[in-house]
């Protein structure tokens, strides 16, 4: 356990300090050092997106980031999406549209969808599918996920529901 490095970062709005080995991924640090198990490990090769987190406004696979790289960065995880006991509109719409079955990919999808809507509040279906292509779901066939994201976008724009509930 030699070689641990001190890292200070901002996690879901709070300053967080931790020690980690340089070989530990940010995913491992979040889960095993900080106890934030919302980001999931599905592949450890950046192919499934289950570990998605937002770093300085950009969604990334936390399995392909070293924990030490978090120094001075701002990190958002699924645990930070609900505020003051209120679900984020994406979380609410995932529930209403039944956009999850087993739920293991859900945190990654929510984080990737948030990153999309933060930049593009009015995406087309194709833009949603493109933005979420790095998140694999084996349960839903994606249909209800895409509908939930489009609906959440409509709600966040302040309009009425963008697509009919499935």
């Amino acid at each position, binding site marked *: 356990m030699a*070689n641990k*490095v001190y890292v200070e970062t901002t996690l879901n709005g709070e300053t967080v300090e931790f020690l980690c*080995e*340089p*070989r530990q*991924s940010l995913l491992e640090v979040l889960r095993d050092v900080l106890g934030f198990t919302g980001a999931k490990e599905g592949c*450890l*090769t*950046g*192919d499934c*997106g289950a570990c*998605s987190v937002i770093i300085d406004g*950009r*969604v*990334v*696979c936390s*399995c*392909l*980031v*070293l924990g*030490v*790289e978090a*120094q001075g960065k701002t990190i958002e995880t699924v645990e930070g999406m609900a505020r003051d006991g209120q679900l984020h509109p994406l979380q609410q719409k995932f529930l209403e549209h039944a956009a999850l079955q087993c739920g293991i990919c859900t945190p990654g999808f929510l984080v*990737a969808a948030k*990153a*999309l809507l933060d930049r593009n509040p009015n995406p087309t279906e194709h833009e949603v599918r*493109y*933005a979420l*292509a*790095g*998140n694999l779901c084996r349960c839903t066939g994606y249909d209800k996920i895409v509908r939930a994201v489009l609906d959440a976008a409509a709600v966040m724009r302040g309009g009425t529901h963008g697509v009919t509930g499935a």
Partner: protein
Amino acid sequence: MHAITYEAPKSLEHALRLLAAAGEKGRVLAGGTDLLIQMRAGVRTPERLIDAKTIPELQVLSFSPHEGLRLGAAVPCYRIVEDPVLCQHYPGLVEAAGLIGSVQIKNRCTVGGNLCNGSPAADTTPALIALGAVCYVASPRGTRTVAVEDFVVSPGRTVLQPDEVLVEFRIPAPPPHTADCYQRFIPRNEMDIAVVGVGAAVTLDGEVCTAARIGLGAVAPTPLFAREASASLVGKPLDDEAIATAAELAQKIARPITDMRGTAEYRLHLVGVLTRRVLKVAAERARAR
């Protein structure tokens, strides 16, 4: 993963010192989207990682009609994809950068890393070859330049010495009526490695092609500059016949393998299909300029 150390240098000079001290054990970490996977699999075993993302000299992204494009080796692909100037002048390079992995990957991966990884299937490499890009490589001994097509020497290996850093690419400004295009074939619509990738850039004078460069990916141990195929287009109108001839010449230098991404026979077939397709698109774009 084996135990490592990590350094975040604040300048190129600092990085070169760290790299020199690390010797054979050092390696530059850019986006990490290939390197960290290879380290976990035991394919590469560097013990000292030096982060390219914190080096300002590797983050340069500038264009002028006089100097052309300076593209820092550690510029993440999202910056290329979202840059309106690049989209205007180098649509093929933007296409290539936009095809690598998911949004998550594009937010990390870099063109420099894509090349230094040494994969014959790197998407941006054929696009850079088509554009005649030159690599600027720094070491304690000074700076040298290497043409992109000469950079990879075998799968996973490049011309870089252990103490060298790929700093940036320089790409000439496109002359009038010049355009590029990159396409690859993958079985899905996203996330796959190219079965074959082809980049092309052409310059037109009226209907006559005055310059052309074609780069090929995933059809040989290294990315290829299709010299004869490119030369065959010069002086001719870019019609179906000329394009078909160039595609056949491109197929002639391809030496593909059979693996889980495709058979040699299929790859050879795709070289023809994609060469024709990218040349047509590049020609249309050049005419429109």
